[in-house]
Every structure is written in structure tokens, then in C-alpha cells.
């Protein structure tokens, strides 16, 4: 796999700002539905776009624990913000999915599986932490004993156009989780946006055939060494800007050895068990299924929807939840995310995107909570 670290820069090109619209056109011409960042209701969310005017040109975000605010930049950057409340999970692992329908017949019923979504989608503006999150969900849905065919179809029909982050939010901590800010793999096309006093352009790179086919339609020039250096400077700046961190040293054992730490009571007094953190987290994958019948009793269907370790029914056994207290639910969430996930899947379940921090109505910060557990911990 070629990366920006390669000496050879033959695969790196320059796309001027004026030519950027051609990328979206090329994607539409190739029959991709283009999903990209766009502004709605005071935030940058992900939705289908028609053209480059739908992108949040000149906008940035101010993020803190429990707060998100759009602000103007002093340039017209197309990607000058970090991640918002949506993640690509909304497309790859949607909040609600019909699994099957059944119809009663003599002596039983017929089952019809739900149709599988095979629409081609191009995700434009995928950040490094988000690629890491998609790879984590791939491991869950595609590399376990059970393969989720609907997920596989959606994943295989997705083209990933990554963007290297230039201005992380105050809630980001991908450096601690080794998932960013630079995109290293897992993309079809990667873009770095470069803005100087008198010029606005992109360094662009493709990996694999699908990405290269799209690039053929764009007005490109070779980037050369200078292009590579400019792109690397963007990453270096982003890395320097990142103020938040999570100390992962020995964290896996630390959390498992401190189930009785007083900090769990402290966080439980603030936690609303509202499920926002798990919904915005790009790696959280838990679901439940519901069966519905119609009034006649002739038809039934099974629907899968997002569930959360913060809900009571999530740990229900024999009619009552095993994890009754909010304390046990928060502890389950954080311990799974940062510790037992490693036992289970070989990586942390956290990619450091900061969404759970910004979108927690109580402003609970996973990095602060982990630091508090470390203080006065059993080793």
C-alpha cells in the first residue's frame, strides 16, 4: 500500500480548488450517491449532496464536553472542521433495519428475507479516526463467526474518499489512540486540503482501481516532492494542535482491576443513562431485535435497531436487567470500549473521535473519567 510516507510521489496529484467540483461530478457520473458533510440545524452532519455548494465551505466547529458550535473560518476551506454528530455508521450500520417478514399459512408461516441494499455510495470526507472505526466494525460484522450479509453488501458498495485533518476539535484525541490525524490506509481516494494566502488546492492520491478510475476524470497535475511536503505539513500542524489525550498505558488491565473504584459512583451521579454516547460512537455496534405482528395476526416482521448498554432492557435476563444501576452501565460501556474490546477484537474500541464527549448532554468526558480511575487505582 502506498502512503504519503513513500519516497516515490508518482501517485500524488494536485487538484486545484476550481477543479474540485469535477470530483463530485465524476462520482455522480459513476452512479455513486455522494454522501458528504453538510450543514443542518447548527451542525455539520452527513447527508446526500448534489454539488460542491452543499459542502460547509468556510465553516469550522467549536467543540467541548457537552457543547458544539459552528463558527466561521477566515478562509473558504471545504474541510476545515472535525467530526460532527453523525458518523458513517448511519449508512453502514443503520439505526433500524428490517430483517424479515413472515406470512401465516396452513400449519406454519413463510419467511421472506428483507431485500439487501446494494446502492453504490461514495463517502466524501472520511477522517482517519472514522476509517479506523469502519475497520473496527468490519471486524465485528465480517470477521467473526457470523457474517452480516447486509453490512457486507453496503460495505462492498462504498467508496471511501478520505480527508486528512488540518484542524482537529478540542474534543479530538486520535493521536493517543494511534488512529490519526493522517489517513494511512483503508481509503480509495485520499485528499489533503491546502490553503495559503493566494492559493487553495488539494493533494490527492488514489489506492486501488475504483479510486484510480475516478481520478482519471479529474484535471490533475503531478504533485512532486513539494506537494508531499505541503500535505505532511498539514498533518504535522494537526498533530501539534491536538490538546486532548488519553493515557492508554496499561489501561486494559487498569480498568479490569478497578471495578470497585469510587469514580464509578461519581460518574454515575452525573450520567443520565440517555444512550447518546453509544449512538454517536462510530464503533458501538449493539442492536436488539423486535418482533411485530399486525392486528390480524396473519403477518409478522422482525426489525433490528440500535440498542445501548445504557438501556435497562439491554442486559435483561429472565425479565429483569442484570445491570440495574447506571454505575454498572457506565462501567460496562467504558470498560468494554477501552479494555475488554482488546480481549475480544484485538484493538481498542475507541478511535479518539471525541463524539461521546461533545454530544453527552451531561458533558461527561471519557478521557477525564479514565484519568480519574487511574488516580488511586489498584494496579
Amino acid at each position, binding site marked *: 500500500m502506498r502512503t504519503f510516507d513513500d519516497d516515490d510521489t508518482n501517485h500524488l496529484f494536485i487538484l486545484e480548488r476550481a477543479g474540485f467540483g469535477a470530483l463530485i461530478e465524476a462520482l455522480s457520473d459513476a452512479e455513486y450517491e455522494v454522501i458528504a458533510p453538510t450543514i443542518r440545524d447548527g451542525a455539520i452532519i452527513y447527508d446526500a449532496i448534489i454539488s460542491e455548494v452543499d459542502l460547509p465551505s468556510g465553516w469550522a466547529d467549536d467543540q467541548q464536553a457537552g457543547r458544539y458550535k459552528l463558527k466561521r473560518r477566515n478562509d473558504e476551506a471545504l474541510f476545515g472542521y472535525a467530526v460532527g*454528530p453523525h458518523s458513517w455508521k448511519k449508512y453502514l450500520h443503520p439505526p433500524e433495519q428490517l430483517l424479515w417478514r413472515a406470512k401465516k399459512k396452513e400449519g406454519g408461516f413463510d419467511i421472506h428475507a428483507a431485500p439487501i441494499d446494494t446502492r453504490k455510495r461514495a463517502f466524501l470526507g472520511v477522517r482517519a479516526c472514522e476509517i479506523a472505526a469502519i475497520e473496527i466494525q468490519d471486524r465485528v460484522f465480517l470477521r467473526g463467526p457470523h457474517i452480516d450479509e447486509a453490512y457486507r453488501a453496503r460495505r462492498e458498495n462504498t467508496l471511501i474518499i478520505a480527508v486528512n485533518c488540518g484542524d482537529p476539535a478540542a474534543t479530538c484525541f486520535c493521536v493517543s489512540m494511534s488512529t490519526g490525524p493522517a489517513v494511512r490506509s483503508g481509503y480509495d481516494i485520499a485528499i489533503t486540503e491546502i490553503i495559503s494566502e493566494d492559493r487553495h488546492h488539494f493533494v490527492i492520491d488514489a489506492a486501488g482501481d475504483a479510486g484510480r478510475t475516478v481520478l482519471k476524470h479529474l484535471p490533475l497535475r503531478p504533485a512532486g516532492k513539494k506537494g508531499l511536503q505541503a500535505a505532511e505539513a498539514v498533518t504535522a500542524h494537526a498533530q501539534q494542535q491536538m490538546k486532548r489525550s488519553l493515557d492508554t498505558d496499561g489501561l486494559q488491565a487498569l480498568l479490569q482491576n478497578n471495578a470497585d473504584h469510587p469514580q464509578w459512583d461519581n460518574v454515575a451521579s452525573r450520567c*443520565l443513562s440517555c444512550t447518546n454516547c453509544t*449512538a454517536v460512537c462510530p464503533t458501538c455496534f449493539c442492536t436488539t431485535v423486535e*418482533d411485530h405482528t399486525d*392486528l390480524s395476526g396473519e403477518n409478522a416482521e422482525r426489525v433490528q435497531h440500535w440498542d445501548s448498554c445504557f*438501556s435497562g432492557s439491554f442486559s435483561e435476563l429472565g425479565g429483569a436487567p442484570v445491570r440495574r444501576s447506571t454505575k454498572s452501565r457506565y462501567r460496562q460501556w467504558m470498560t468494554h470500549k477501552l479494555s475488554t474490546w482488546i480481549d475480544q477484537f484485538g484493538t481498542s474500541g475507541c478511535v479518539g473521535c471525541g463524539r461521546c464527549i461533545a454530544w453527552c*448532554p*451531561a458533558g461527561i468526558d471519557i478521557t477525564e473519567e479514565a484519568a480519574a480511575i487511574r488516580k488511586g487505582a489498584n494496579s
Partner: protein
Amino acid sequence: MARKHIPKLAVWKFASCDGCQLSLLDCEDEFLALAGVIDIANFPEATRTKKRGPYDLSLVEGSISTMRDRERIQKVRRQSKYLVTIGACATAGGVQALRNGRDIAEFMSVVYARPDYIDTLATSTPISDHVKVDFELRGCPINKSQLLELITAFLHGRRPAIATTSVCAECKARGTVCVMTAKQAPCLGPVTQAGCGAICPAYDRSCYGCFGPMESPNTVSLKEQWRNLGANEKDIRRAFQTFNAGAPEFLNAARGHADKNN
């Protein structure tokens, strides 16, 4: 073959605005298609015909606020295999529960020209304070698709799939941008039960708490967040004193019982 039993459904009204019965009327199309599958034996908002009990399923709207109703609900219970309460009045006493703990005689003298004509209890209480209730369907008013889910579940002997988590879960499922986080609008969603489909935040309003307390409401923490967003104690009290004012968790939140500093 034995004749198929056609389940009898009855709807009962106590102290309420009829809004929840209207949600049921709204299911008209679904019911028409099923003439012969369900026998609607009593439904005052829809028809004057009234069949005798017993009933397979009784839906009860409204709270208990008079002596007469206190006795009537016992009769309804005796005639019903399942009794399900629908809406904030029936499940929490409704907005009329605001009078609980206050001077009812004074209220009557202010509101009515002839208070001596009024026959009322000093309190408005949920049905579950008086008889055994098999399920409580929340909302002011209730949600039509939840009502259909509830009726089909009871008729087919399965557990209704009705979530007791927060409104936030519905906001996130529909992709609404959180108004509390992005607009600094104090929202009741985190302590309110889902079911409405998170309509208000989708229209740039914070949640009013129509569906009452969710399964594990941390009102103390939410109030602290509201204060951080600039809400004062009066705003907080008011927010918890609407349709579900009588629900114990909201009542305590309004009175500040569980707060550390009160």
C-alpha cells in the same frame, strides 16, 4: 371447529381531554379492515352503542378526580381481562394533578361562580393508584403506532415492544442534531421516555416531557446541566410541572427533594 372468539375491546373515559381517544379514532383505517376480527364493545368518542362485558381488553383514558369515578374504575377492572391505561392523565394524573397538595377549595372559589355545584376529590390520581393495571401507555397524547403495537400485542398474547429509554435515543435514530448540545437549549429529553419519535427536537424545540419519566431518570444531574445553560429554579420547576406533574420522579424534581443542595 369451535367458533372463533372475537376479542372485545372497550374504551373508558375518566378525567381527560379525549385526545388519546382521538389517537385511537385515528387508527380507523386499520380497524375498518378488521371488522369481524375485533369487536369494539364500548368507545364513547366513536359510537353510542355499548355492549356488556366482560371485555378482553379495556383501554382507560383519564385520571381519577371524583368519588363517582373512583367507584366506576373498580367496575371496569372487574369486567376486564386486561386493563391498559393510555395517556398522561391515566398514567400520572395528568395536568390536573397540579392541584394535588394545594388548596382545592380556594381553586374552586376562584374558578367557578357556584363552587357548591362542584363535586370533586382534592386530588387527581393515576388509575394504578386505584386498581391493578396491566400496562401503562405513556404520552400526552399517546402515539398512534405505539397504540396499535399495544393492542396487537395484547390480542396475540405477546409483550408489547415499547421502549422505556430516553427521547435522546429517538433523536439519534432519526439523526436530529441535539438542541441541548448545539443550541444550548435546556431539554427534558434525557429524562423523558421515548415514544413520540422525538418530534420537538426535530423542529428545533427542546423536549417538553410529554411521555413522562424514562426508566432511569437522573433529574438531579439534568437540572444541574440546565443551571449551567442558564435556567433558573422557576424555569426548572415549571418544566417538570406539566402533563406528567404527578409522576413521582417529576414531582420530586419540581420540589427539589432529591437535590444535594436543597
